């Protein structure tokens, strides 16, 4: 896959503090990519450097082959939802979006502005001053400006932070709709959301890249599954003897069977079906089956 975003040995210092240290990863074209890490991990700093807001102390960034610090290099190529950036309070939303559309060089600013307000489900805010918006509405307006003109690269910093569940679900749907049409980078603390949305992810901790890879690799979806046991003795020897099984163990007071398998040698659906079949045959009652581990577990394990 061709890389839309390339970060090489990126480093950022604020005085004596090193906020980002030797971070390198690529984001493929059309991918939805998550930036994960605890507070102070360097997510927003990395994000801000990708958007051209902060200059790296060393290292390079390429966005669609261009240097984001070259004046005007990102024009029309990138949409950004920055974290904590305040919308100019005195502007009515419609006028603000039209102004930003004009600055982006879009041919029909009013049409673009109205369309994008519809996408974030806020068409009624056209004449309302941006300063009069609630937090959730302001976030969606900020999201709207990032989507105007359908830029090929979209950066979203904490897109659902502080939103109520219903609005957050709507925002997630907007991001889902972007998949395949744009390269999307999402920085968030909401790991469940990232697990659901992203194809790949990078985990940062204390300014360093801890791990980067596809979501399947991160969560072990191609190498691990869990069976929740309700009742009955699990025939461990028979499970371990199944073709493709590497290890099997019981966890959480024998209520969860964890099976690691050789993802290269056997298809997940094949070994999962055979394992469940064996358990049913031996009259073990099961409550559910899940592939891999939660992203949250992986992040907690790595950071």
């Amino acid at each position, binding site marked *: 896959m061709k890389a839309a975003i390339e970060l090489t040995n990126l480093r950022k210092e604020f005085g004596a503090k090193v906020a980002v240290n030797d971070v390198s990863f690529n984001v493929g074209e059309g991918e939805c990519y998550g930036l994960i890490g605890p507070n102070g991990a360097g997510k927003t700093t990395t994000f801000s450097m990708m958007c051209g807001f902060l200059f790296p102390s060393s290292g390079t960034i390429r966005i669609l082959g261009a240097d984001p610090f070259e004046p005007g290099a990102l024009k029309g190529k990138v949409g950004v939802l920055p974290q904590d*950036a305040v919308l100019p309070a005195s502007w009515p939303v419609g006028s603000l979006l039209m102004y930003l559309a004009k600055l982006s060089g879009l041919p029909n600013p009013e049409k673009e502005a109205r369309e994008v307000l519809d996408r974030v489900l806020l068409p009624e805010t056209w004449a309302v001053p941006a300063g009069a918006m609630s937090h959730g509405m302001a976030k969606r307006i900020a999201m709207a400006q990032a989507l105007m003109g359908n830029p090929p690269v979209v950066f979203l910093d904490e897109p659902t932070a502080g939103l109520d569940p219903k609005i957050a679900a709507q925002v997630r749907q907007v991001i889902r709709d972007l998949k395949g049409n744009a390269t999307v980078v999402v920085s968030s603390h909401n790991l469940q959301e990232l697990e659901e949305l992203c194809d790949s992810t990078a985990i940062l901790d204390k300014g360093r890249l801890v791990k980067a890879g596809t979501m399947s690799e991160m969560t072990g979806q191609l190498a691990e599954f869990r069976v929740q046991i309700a009742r009955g003795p699990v025939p461990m020897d028979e499970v371990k003897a199944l073709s493709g099984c590497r290890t099997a163990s019981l966890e959480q007071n024998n209520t969860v069977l964890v099976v690691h398998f050789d993802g290269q040698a056997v298809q997940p659906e094949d070994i999962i079906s055979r394992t469940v079949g064996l358990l049913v045959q031996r009259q073990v009652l099961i409550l559910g089956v899940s592939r891999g581990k939660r992203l949250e577990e992986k992040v907690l394990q790595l950071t």
Partner: protein
Amino acid sequence: MNDIHEIKEIWQGEIGRALKGGRVVVLLILFLLFIGLALTIVGSINYGLNGKIDEALQQGQVDKAAAAAQAIESRKKVLSTFFTDDESLLEFLATMPLVLFVVFKLTMMFGPLFIALMGFDQISGEIGPKSIRYLVVRVKRSSILLGKFAAQATLASGLLILCTIVMVVVAKVLNDDFAVGAAVLMGFKLSAVLVVFALAYLALSSLCSSVTRQSGVSLVLNVILLFVVWAMALIGNLVRLPGEEAAFGTLASLKPEHWVGYMRFGSVWNFGQDLLHPEPARFLSAGMVHLGFALFFLGLAHLALRKRDL
């Protein structure tokens, strides 16, 4: 071409925002109140003097031409003591009604402060709350700077021209001998002088706003730099340049010679008065100096903004 389009869009947006924001209107009212107060005080003195001259004329103590000539001579004496030794500039200034001259000088003195109050947060007001991030992914940083500078220049020019019109109209009302044609010409000249004069201070305001992310700090910095600009011109003019000639009996002849005099050339304030000079070479060179300072300050602002984290 793309840059000009970006600058134009920022300029239009900023003008609209400023007019909706209300600060410009409040500042205009304040400045007009200030001018009104100055006009009232100087105008009443002027009115009293004119009344006395009229009284003397009616009693036949002096003839009209002699009174007018004497008034001009006394005005030139005052001006040569407090403002300039330059003969041709004195001739020109003496033709201005006293009320117009005094209030115009006050406007030149306080104009830079007015400009600072109007534009101190043009850039810093966007960096602090990070709203500039919505702009920098769309336009060049230089376009933001120049677009905002152009908007401030447009607004300041409009306000200063309006103030000049008020001054000229009041001066005409108070002085019967100030002919309509002369008043119109004077209005054009003084407006042009104020617009050119304002350029360097507008650019200084842009510079102060570009070097910090806190609006309050940029205002304080701007005011401090204005004092530095005034102080450099003042101190530089307290002495004569080494080897500089001064006619006997003039104010300049009383000043000692010292190299500190060169300090005046580092201050744009020093060249403000020359914008009123009747000789084209003098007012054109003063205009170029103002433009040069404006470009210098804008260049520094661009350097500050180009490489800073936002």
